[in-house]
């Protein structure tokens, strides 16, 4: 079925509730509906049509249409369709029925909508603050258009703390984070522990929220944003920059030249290689096996060097502009890349052969951090976590982008649903990536690297893009706008969905398994949170009290 067929199904069931539908192609569907019917339509799409939930987005559209906008994105993986259910809400009372009763995976997205835009999801069963810091005043919503991007609220309450739930009976509270050797980025998991078993967990995160979306909507331009997008994450930067430019290109119906698509594919797969190799090393380090950690990093290093040779930097490739790429893969680089891949494949096969029979590692990872098919569906899990549960979703095959429709590869799944299956899936995906890069190097066509864009981009168009990051599906939503910048840009990283399942995965498991369960979703908190504070110090040395530091960071500074 293509997008049109799905629209016909929705029309047949909901008729007049659908006000308008945009069908830019066979693979995208934008349905504008009455706010009161959003919940039923989402339930129908999620349960009856068996779509996968992606994200919910809130936007302040008041300067343009006088209303707020809510969008719920779904994916029909087998039909290669991305669909968005949108509704306009009255400006004086932005409320909408929460869809969490039908779609439990929308938990965080709706809380974020409430925190940042002020759209209240009525009927949400756990409407606590998610993104904003504890002391932030209640009625200041940063993503609204009347709030400046560097706004400092006057009545920020230093002393207010986050009110955690009470622990269940008989449990002690073990705080995990924000400072912990295993976590690379700060987040707080409040574990309720009975002896050595974890009985429950509460998450308080978003400590590294950086206000990226607000900056993109206020101060940056279309071609500046890829530089920002690739810094969302310390490992999957290329993914976000490609997803963003693809969303804009999809919004304005531009197709980059074929050579650019091949270059994007190659860089994305190089990124997947280094990310998976890093992750296997990290997982071994978490279970105490430092030797394999060192070896994985040693094997991974040539990938970083070749990326540096192609793009000029090991990780921040600065690759994409809207309509193309900036770097080319010359014939010398092709030869060198092939060498690197051959050597990598040989070494990695040796490691995989060794690790597959290793009972010592398997004892720590089999049966741990279980996420079965039901949890995958209800929580909307993506990436290797879903594939290790037997759910074969992969955006490269389901929603083809860049040059993936021209190469052949397998989607690796496993049936174990546990951490060991995720290890196996990631280790095997390395070989698929190598296969894809080799095919791209052969099939690459000559041609320009960028489109010659002479006109300004049209305004008010919607664009969706799903890219398979090493951790899962990274989904970007863009509304193009005036002044060379988007009106709304929403980034949904894969960890955003996968983190929501952590309490279910670590329940009734031991504390020792908590770190490896968390590590097995390959969390990228930088992708998930999106603010930062700038900390300045005077030249003199003096011990600063916490209050003083906080005041200093919040004093309004002359921009920027």
């Amino acid at each position, binding site marked *: 079925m293509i997008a049109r067929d799905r629209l016909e199904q929705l029309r047949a069931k909901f008729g007049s509730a659908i006000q308008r539908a945009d069908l830019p192609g066979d693979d995208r569907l934008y349905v504008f509906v009455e706010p009161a019917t959003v919940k039923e339509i989402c339930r129908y799409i999620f349960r009856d049509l068996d779509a996968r939930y992606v994200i919910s987005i809130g936007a302040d559209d008041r300067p343009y249409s006088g209303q707020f906008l809510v969008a719920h994105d779904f994916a029909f993986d087998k039909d290669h369709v991305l669909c968005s259910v949108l509704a306009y809400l009255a400006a004086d009372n932005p409320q909408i029925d929460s869809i969490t009763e039908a779609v439990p995976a929308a938990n965080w997205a709706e809380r974020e909508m409430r925190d940042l835009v002020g759209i209240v999801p009525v009927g949400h069963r756990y409407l606590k603050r998610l993104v904003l810091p504890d002391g932030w005043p209640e009625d200041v919503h940063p993503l609204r258009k009347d709030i400046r991007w560097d706004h400092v609220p006057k009545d920020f309450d230093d002393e207010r703390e986050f009110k955690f739930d009470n622990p269940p009976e008989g449990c002690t509270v073990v705080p995990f984070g924000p400072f912990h050797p295993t976590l690379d980025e700060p987040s707080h998991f409040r574990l309720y522990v009975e002896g050595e078993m974890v009985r429950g967990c509460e998450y308080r995160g978003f400590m590294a929220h950086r206000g990226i979306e607000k900056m993109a909507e206020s101060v940056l331009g279309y071609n500046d944003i890829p530089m920002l997008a690739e810094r969302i994450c310390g490992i999957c930067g290329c993914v976000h920059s490609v997803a963003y430019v693809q969303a804009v290109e999809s919004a304005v119906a531009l197709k980059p030249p074929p050579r650019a698509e091949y270059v994007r594919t190659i860089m994305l797969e190089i990124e997947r290689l280094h990310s998976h190799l890093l992750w296997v090393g990290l997982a071994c380090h*978490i279970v105490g096996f430092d030797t394999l950690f060192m070896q994985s990093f040693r094997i991974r290093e040539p990938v970083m060097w070749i990326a540096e040779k192609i793009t000029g930097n090991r990780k921040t490739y600065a690759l994409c502009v809207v309509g193309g790429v900036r770097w080319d893969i010359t014939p010398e680089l092709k030869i060198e890349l092939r060498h690197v891949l051959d050597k990598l494949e040989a070494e990695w096969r040796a490691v995989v052969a060794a690790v597959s029979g290793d009972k010592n590692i398997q004892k720590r990872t089999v049966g741990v951090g279980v996420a079965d098919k039901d949890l995958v569906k209800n929580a909307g899990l993506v990436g290797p976590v879903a594939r290790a549960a037997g759910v074969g979703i992969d955006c490269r095959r389901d929603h083809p982008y860049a040059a993936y429709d021209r190469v052949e590869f397998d989607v690796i799944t496993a049936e174990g649903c546990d951490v060991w299956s995720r290890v196996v899936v990631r280790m095997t995906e390395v070989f698929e990536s190598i296969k894809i890069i080799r095919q791209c190097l052969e099939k690459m066509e000559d041609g320009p690297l960028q489109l010659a864009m002479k006109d300004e981009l049209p305004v008010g168009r919607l664009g969706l893009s799903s890219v398979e990051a090493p951790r899962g599906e990274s989904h970007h939503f863009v509304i193009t706008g005036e002044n060379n910048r988007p009106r709304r840009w929403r980034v949904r990283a894969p960890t955003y969905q996968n983190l929501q399942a952590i309490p279910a995965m670590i329940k009734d498991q031991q504390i020792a398994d908590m770190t490896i369960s968390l590590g097995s979703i390959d969390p990228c908190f930088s992708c998930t949170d999106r603010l930062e504070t700038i900390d300045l110090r005077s030249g003199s040395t003096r011990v600063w009290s916490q209050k003083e530091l906080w005041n200093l960071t919040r004093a309004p500074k002359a921009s920027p």
Partner: protein
Amino acid sequence: MSSSLISAVCGGVMNVIVVLAVAPLCQGVLRKVTARIQSRQGPPLWQPYFDLLKLLGKEDIESGVSPAMQRFTVYLSLAAVLTVACFVPMGFGAPMDGAGDVYLLIYLLTLCGVCTLLAGLAAGSTYSLIGISREMMSMIALEPLFAVALVVGAMHVGSFRLNAVLNGSVYASSGISWSGLIMLGVIVLSFQAFVQRVPFDISEAETELMEGPLMEYSGPKLALFKYAQMSKLVIYSALFVALFVPWGSGLWYPLGWVLFWAKVFVLVLLVTVVAATHARYRIDQAIRYFAGLLAVAFLALILASYGY
């Protein structure tokens, strides 16, 4: 003072000095070999000496629940380990042979373990309490193993005196010493746990517990604690060599002494290689493993009581 008393005290002091001098070197070897296995350069062999000096010079931050208890625990820990050193034959006979017997040795070894518990308790933070609960569980299953080995040896030679037992006594049975070989196997399989290395360094799992019982220790306290841990490696290796591979120690000085330290060195290398190639076990898996070994050890004890 009688000359035997003087020589005993001197011998004990000599042992202590040797242990203090050699322990950081063994740690350095361990780190260097681990690094080479991991394709790295690794720190210089003398790095642990520098680390200890650095830590001793740092500010002592009192951050635990009861700082006085923390200080006491640290001194107790190092003192217990060094006292054990006085009783271990290191190339010569056990210097303070007359001052104690095998039972004292067993209790002193247990005291070393208890010091970790006290340390975590004095620190009082959530992670250190979890660490000591793990340590307690593993101690219950682990400490008896060495005790059984010593008792098996004592049974064979019919005496609890240190010099008699710590001289390969486990093999001195009336035939093929099954109990000796079984105990050799048991102690080899659990040696990593005694010296607190991967796969059995569970109570101080860095990635899970942020160093567990050692969490609130910094500066000089941490230096002494680390020193105690390093010395434990040497002590246990020496005990192992004395109990299970004593051949050649009777040779005239300096050959016997050199041979002894060579054997200790080989044991340290073995510990390093196993530590570098294994992942850490979970506490329940470790307890089951030790419980199994304990059952086998008791079997050896029964065999020893029948003279096998």
